[in-house]
Structure formats: C-alpha cells, structure tokens
C-alpha cells in the first residue's frame, strides 16, 4: 500500500467517527485530537477501525506515539512493511 492509499484509508476511517472532518483542514504536523474533536471512545473506535481495515495490531502502549496525523501514517507504514 503506497502512502496516498494509506492516507485515504486513514482519512476515511476518521470520517466514520467524525463525519464533519475536511481533509484539507487537517494539518499532518499538529496533534490530531486537537484538530478533530475526539474523545477517548472516538479515539479507540478510530484505532479499531484502522485495525480492522489494515489488519495491524496497535498496542495501547503505542498510543503515545500517535499524536499527529503524520505520526499515525508513519506508524502504520512501518507496521505494514
């Protein structure tokens, strides 16, 4: 899966949780949860969605690494290799 495909999947998953998200408004280098109103249930559902679409395991201990959209994409990219 190339970078653009992965980004598409991530944004689509995010939109199932927060339909109001406009991709163009998201900055990849800013904390995601500050830009999108996600509580811990939303965040968990977002990660469950990614887990189900991409078959990647995301241990809770790794949550701290997943701050920005860029972090999420890098993390998933590495996991998918």
């Amino acid at each position, binding site marked *: 899966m190339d970078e653009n495909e992965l980004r598409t999947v991530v944004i689509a998953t995010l939109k199932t949780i927060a339909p109001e998200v406009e991709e163009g408004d998201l900055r990849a280098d800013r904390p995601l949860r500050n830009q999108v*109103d996600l509580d811990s249930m939303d965040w968990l559902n977002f990660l469950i969605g990614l887990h189900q679409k991409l078959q990647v395991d995301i*241990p*809770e201990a790794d949550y701290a690494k997943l701050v920005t959209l860029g972090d999420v994409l890098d993390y998933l990219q590495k996991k998918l290799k």
Partner: protein
Amino acid sequence: MIEFTLPSLGADMDEGKLLEWKVSPGDTVKKGQVVAIVDTSKAAVDIEIWCEGTVFELLTEPDETIPVGTVMATLLEAGESAETAKRAPRAAPAPKAAATPSHPGPLPRHGGEGIVSGRRRVSPAARKHAEELGVDIETVAGSGPEGAVTLADVEQAAAAKVSPARTAAVTDKVADKAAAMRRAIAAAMGRSKREIPHYYLSEPVPMRRATEWLALANEGRPITARLLMAVLQLKAVALALRKFPEMNGFFRDGAFQPATAAHIGVAISLRQGGLIAPAIHDVGEKSLEQLMLDLADLVKRARAGSLRSSEMSDPTITVTNLGEQGVAAVYGVIYPPQVALVGFGRIGEQPWVENNALGVMPVATASLAADHRVSDGHRGALFLAALRDQLQEPEKL
C-alpha cells in the same frame, strides 16, 4: 384493559412524534419489548412496554405528534377478550395548544381553539415568566390547584410553541433539530437551576493505581476488547453510591424517592451539537467488560439517534466526563428529577505529597453537584471520599 401511554423520556420532553409501530393488533407483548419508535427533539427512541398483554387497538397514527401521557394503544390483559373489554375512551390530554382552560373573556384566535369562560388563576411569577418567554398567558393550560397556571405550565407552553415547526415537513432539517434540542436543554437546565438548590464539592483523586491497573489489563487484550478509564469511573461511582442512597434517585412531588439500583446517565456530546445522557442500567452489578460493551453501544446509538425509552427515562444519577475535552474540573447542572451529578476532570500529572515526599502523580478532579433538599455537604464530602477510595482499588471494581 391496559392503556399504553407515551412515557416521558426525561425532564426536557413534553411531546413526541410516532414514527413507527413495531406491533399490530392481536400481537402478544412481553415486558420490555419495543412496541414503537417515537421521535423526540434528541433522538428516535425505541419505546418499551412495561406490562404483558395482547395489543387490542393502536390509537396513534404514524407521523402524529402527541403530548406525553397520551394513550397510544390499548392492550388486553391475560384472560381478557376483545368482547369483554370495553372500548377504552381516548383519555388523552388534549394537545397543548387546544387545552385552553377557563378564560374570562373572548380569546384572541390561536389556531381556532375554543373559548371557555370562568375565573382563572395565574401566579405573578408565572405571568412574569410568560412575558419573558413570549408566551400568551391566556392560552396556557393550568395544572396547579383549581387550574392555576404555574411556572411549569408556562414552560411547557413555551416548549409546545415550537411544535408546529417540529411537526412540519422540515423535521429532518439539522438546524431545526439542533434548535429543538437547544430549547429542550434550556427548559430542563432552567428548571434545574430554578428548583434545585445545588451545592458543589470537588476532590483531587490520585489516579496512579487506576491508570497502571488499566494499562496492565489492556496489555493482554485485543484492541476490540480494551477498557477505557471512563468505565472504571462509572463503576466506582456506582459502588460508592451504595452507601450514599441520598445521591441516587428522584426528587418528585416534594419528596425524595431513593432508587434501588444505580442506573447511571452518561453525558454524551453529539457531533452536531447538544448532548444527551441516557442510562446504563445496574452499573454496580456489571463487570467492567460488560460496562465497556454497554458504554460503546450506548455512545454509538446516542450518536446515531437511536435509544430505548428506559435509557432515556430512568437515569438515577448522571456522570459527565468533560476531562476528555481537557478541562481540570466540571461543576454540573443536575438533570431533574435526579438529585446529583458527578463530574470527572482530565487526568493530568501534578505535584503530590505522599509519605512526606514530593512526587508526581496523575490526578483527576472528581466533583459532585448535589441537591440540598435531599443531602448536605457533609454527606456529599463523604461520598466523594468513598469515590476516591474506590478508585484506589481498581482490582475490586
């Protein structure tokens, strides 16, 4: 003959629109079965029935908007047959706008309602409030002694004023829905602040044990089975309530009615704005795993606008977790007729003195808003201390 009426699904609801019947005449129904779907300003609610019987007659048509208390259907009790059962008179309260009671003189026309004569009592406070809300006091039905118009009547009338707009074809419009929800919240919270003498307490709760226990518990779980801290907090509240029944129940008709179980209303913010606080039932009796499933399901259905009538009508206390949005503490407004609300702030690291040593501790501020008609600050303080202690023994939750 059993009369099935539209239940009130919370202090902020006074009417509903029938969307769909889930039963037909002749069907037998069990207690707790969903018999209809009713649209309120907050959600499409699955209405559960609280008795057994056989559906005899459906009296409300889909798309009809009816006040709370309207007889929607009649049912035959066990042993009763259609022949023996008398056709129940439709004892519905008349629609609010038409319920104009005694009135001294000719009325200005309000949709062509009837004119009745007689003396009319209106409290000065109700009259003043009617002016503030832009309600014509002469059109308000009185429910007080000798038909006196009370503050509550004025509020109901103000809420009912919006009904033509809501029943029109524009119901589905988001803006309309949001406005209706805002009015419903305003009515309930206005009533709370007017009627309930709130007192507020807060207590910093050390969260190290709970966070460490949770991290360990989640380590071995697949992502789909992980727990959230919110679930531990809900269970801790339910367990603490066992020794403080005066925080759990309803204040109705001038008296407190303690509840026998903790049905905790969970404040859920909706993406389109507004909030809803449906109940998770019997929180004290459920495992954390079960509570997590229940919470995930409740949030999903609340956001999708699909809730059950029992979830809407019977929360015995509310818990709000605004810490999720990053605030340090929340001082809540009690949702009538409940008598308490527990709030949790964010979990953040703070300097903390323990055993004469200064260290760093993850801390969350727990707060209590409670009803002074039912409890005092002393008991409230003991309740918060019990809640704090519950969270120090996460393995026992």
